[in-house]
């Protein structure tokens, strides 16, 4: 018997949140990724809940503290072994891209104009979820960290070619965002036009742990016959919980900036985010369609724990040798000098993720073929990935998925996830990127630009009652 769990008020709330989230996309967002795409269609996994708030697991769960749900990912658009290491033309082994045998044009063509690499970590410290009444409630305390590095293509061009010219390396940047996430979620089925639609929402209270950003406003490198010169200027922003930088003002050495800080005891920075999701089925439940919008929110970094300033113009130059004194005419700053300004509180958007998934199942859901579109909205760029997956459910307590992500990876990179979820344990392990081509000696995939690893261990709780609104 189906129970009508449609909550009009909740639906309106969800729509309003979505609109607000779309509006906030105009503000510079920064977010944390680390979502296991291969797990999206694995109903028994706990990890898929992070990708769509509407997903209802088979059972409740209690994550093993600290080690119950860990995800580590490296995402880049240029870091592939084959692009930086090449077979040694003189024999066995490999040479770096800086070897003379590696054609400069060939190497540089493999890079993007702006190259980025991001390391993200998502660790669940505490997490549990359970069915109660007409809702599936979930709670979690996560530690989320993401550090990204942006390297302009000109940097590699200088290193490889060293040709005379003027190079703009202003896209150099580093950013690190770290915060605690208190998650409270609820998911429940509703009926829309007599169609059951599972909807869910999660509210995340965020506590900023630390934020750092260094970006080069200008980094000009000039190589010519008279002088090799690099002029750099930039700015930095930092925010560290419980730290007080209020006594730091004006020009100083960067090293002093790092050392001369005091403990304030104030956490200061907080944020709010939402996950919204919906899932439904068609074609006699063979086609599962879902949409999830995650990390729609912000963190307001408090100025009490903030420090920001300008990196004073740094100039390095080499102009050859003074033939009179026979000494190099070389200039470099004695120290990195910065000018610390008045800090301001900054509100930064998280990197929102939009997951659109569809899965067609056969043989009573023993096999399903899924298609997941994942788009992430970051401040500097927007990335999209399309993942095909073959999901195998030979029995109720085991799911295995083979996936392949298009766009960023060429053929030869697959994902694999395994989830064993009997009544007494829920174990998950997965990698979205498994190469088919490995290097010799050290088993590093040659063609992959991204990789991730997920691990989960949880204690299953009770299933929803058979007569509840969750039953199908």
């Amino acid at each position, binding site marked *: 018997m189906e129970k009508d769990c449609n909550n009009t008020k909740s639906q309106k709330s969800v729509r309003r949140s979505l609109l607000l989230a779309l509006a906030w996309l105009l503000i510079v967002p920064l977010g944390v990724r680390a979502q296991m795409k291969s797990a999206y269609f694995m109903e028994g996994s706990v990890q898929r809940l992070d990708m769509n708030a509407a997903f209802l697991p088979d059972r409740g769960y209690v994550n093993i503290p600290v080690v119950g749900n860990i995800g580590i990912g490296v995402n880049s658009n240029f870091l592939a072994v084959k692009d930086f290491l090449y077979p040694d033309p003189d024999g066995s082994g490999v040479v770096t891209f800086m070897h*003379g045998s590696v054609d400069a044009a060939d190497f540089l063509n493999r890079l993007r104009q702006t190259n980025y690499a991001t390391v993200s970590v998502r660790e669940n410290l505490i997490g549990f979820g359970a069915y109660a009444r007409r809702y599936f409630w979930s709670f979690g305390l996560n530690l989320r960290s993401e550090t990204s590095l942006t390297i302009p293509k000109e940097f590699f061009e200088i290193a490889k070619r060293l040709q005379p010219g003027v190079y703009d390396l202003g896209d150099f940047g580093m950013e690190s965002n770290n915060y605690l996430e208190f998650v409270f979620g609820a998911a429940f089925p509703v009926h829309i036009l007599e169609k059951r639609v599972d909807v869910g929402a999660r509210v995340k209270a965020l506590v900023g742990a630390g934020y750092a950003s260094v970006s080069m406003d200008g980094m000009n490198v000039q190589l010519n016959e008279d002088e090799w010169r690099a002029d750099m200027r930039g700015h930095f922003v930092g925010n560290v919980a419980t730290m007080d930088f209020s006594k730091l003002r004006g020009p100083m050495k960067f090293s002093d900036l790092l050392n001369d800080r005091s403990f304030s005891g104030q956490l200061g920075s907080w944020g709010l985010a939402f996950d919204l999701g919906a899932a439904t089925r068609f074609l006699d439940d063979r086609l599962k369609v879902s949409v999830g919008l995650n990390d729609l929110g912000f963190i307001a970094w408090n100025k009490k724990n903030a420090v920001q300033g300008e990196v004073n113009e740094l100039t390095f130059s080499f102009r050859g040798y003074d033939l009179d004194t026979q000494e190099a005419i070389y200039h470099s700053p004695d120290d990195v000098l910065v000018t610390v300004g008045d800090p301001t509180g900054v509100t930064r958007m998280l990197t929102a993720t939009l997951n659109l998934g569809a899965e067609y199942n056969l043989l009573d859901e023993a096999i399903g073929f899924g298609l997941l579109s994942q788009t992430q909205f970051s401040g500097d760029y927007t990335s999209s990935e399309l993942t095909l997956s073959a999901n195998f459910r030979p029995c109720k307590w085991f799911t295995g998925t083979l996936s392949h992500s298009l766009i960023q990876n060429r053929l030869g990179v697959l994902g694999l996830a395994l989830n064993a979820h009997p009544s007494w344990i829920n174990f998950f392990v997965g990698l979205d990127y498994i190469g088919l081509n490995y290097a010799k000696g050290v088993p590093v995939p040659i063609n992959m630009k991204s990789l991730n690893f997920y691990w989960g261990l949880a204690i299953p709780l009770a299933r929803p009652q058979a007569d509840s609104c969750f039953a199908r």
Partner: protein
Amino acid sequence: MIRLSSSVAACCKRSAVFMLAVLSVGATSCVNEAYDLNHINLKMTLGADGVTLPLGKLETQTVRKLLGDSGVDTLKLDTDDGYYAYRVEDSFTETIESVTVEPVERLLPDFDPAIVHLEVGDVADLPDLPDLPGVGEVTPVLQGDASFAATIDDTFALPDEVVALTYARVYDASSPQGETSVPEIVVRMTFDQMPFETCRFEQIRISLPPFLVSDSESYDEATHSIEVDRVDYVGPSTEIVRIPVVGIRDIPVEEDATGKVGHLTGDVEMTARVWVEGIDGEVREMDLTLQPEVSLPPLGVSQVTGRVDLDLQRYLEPTTIDFDDLSEALDGEKLELNLVAPQIEIRVVNPIGIAMTGAIRLQPYDLAGAPLDPVVVSGVRIAAAEGVEPRTTKLYITDQTEAPSGYELCHVADLSDLVREVPSRIDVSFELDTDPDEEHHIAVSGERYDLDMDYLVRLPLAFRDGATIDYTMTEDVSDSFDEIDKYELVAEDILIRIAARSTLPLTLGLTADFLAADGTPVEDVVAEVTGEIKGHEAGIPDEPGESQLAVSLQIADGNLSHLQQVDRIRLRFQGTAVGAGAALSPEQYLEAKMTLVLQQGITFDLDELLSE
């Protein structure tokens, strides 16, 4: 035997497809042998398509700065024409020992007494008969003629240098007044007895030898005699006359066992009429013995005029013109500059009345001290002093045809050969002699004569038309490449580009040789230089264009470790003067910018680099 539960077994059956798929994936996974990460070659090449980096810049070096930094203080700016000249000046004194002549002792001989026969003379012959007692009374007056003669035949020592003695100014060597004293011949007469009351001498005539010179007004140069009208005899050793002697002349110079001597020969004659009166009795005639005395003090010789043959080489020692600071600045390297000829001014103050003629020999030495071809300045004449006043002779040695006012021109056509190669020093030898046929006047002071000389050598830094320069310098780089082999650096086709701008009046080319410790060229390191630094003709106002030099450095296999064999780098600059009269002025300059081009980049092993 383990029995699986039915649910597990069923699950495994159904998992077959999945497992098959996983295994298929696993089967198709492969290890790419080409990517053996056990062997990662960290050899890196920077700028494989060629890298250009600044090597250095020679800031604008003006000639003023170059010469100022060179420590060559003797390079002065010639304010007349605005160009530089190397100036060396010095003075020195050569001491010549004076010609000394020993005093002539006892020149005049002793006279023998003579008997004067007196007999009554005619009173009429006594026109000025004095108030003699008894006049009017017939008192016999006796008269007679006295005549004396003696011969001088004496010698006195002369210096060996004296060839002929025309005149010698004499003084009384016994007088405390020294050379200002005038010796006198004193003639006296003495009768051995005086049987008369009065006596006088009249018509006294004294003839001296022609070699004696007197400035007495009474002395007759033509007859070499002096006449005295009358002298009354007043007693023994009555002075008859004093004859001043100022000199002796035309003395034959002879050589005997003792050396050079002056031979004095001649006669001294005296005649006089003697009148006596007041003789007791009727004496009509008598004979008296008259002893003349002619004395002359020792004659010192203060000046001589004659011909001498001085051995000037004994006195005139060579002097040296040093180019110490210039040779130090050049650091001992050979430098051919082909400069225009120097101008040499020599001023000689000659205190002696001897003219000197001959030549001046200029012997240059190269920077290593080896003699170069000498230059001889012939036809040199140092004028003799006039009297006691020294005389100054100014010589101007040049290859030009004119000398400045007041200078005597000593033209040497090939004088520029003296500085074809920059010398470390020039030895100046005075090959002078006196002319034995020329008469000289010498003050015989007994002191030494200081021959003062000073010279000025002005060497313009101006090049002859079409002159070439050749300068070689060697840089010691023995310690520069000691550790280069640690980094296994490889760089082929190394090019050093030099862009230079010069307003020097020289077009310069460069060759470079890399030498091992034994001085032999290192075969594994060869440099080839193309291009030259163009010179700029003086007087052309346009700014000079930029010249390009390229030094192509070929190292065997591009292995920079070969540079360890290099102990020295020898750089040879060869150039040609641009324009006529190319000279160096303060504002001329040279500036250069050097660029290093590694046409195939530079390769190094990062592993080796980090391990060091």
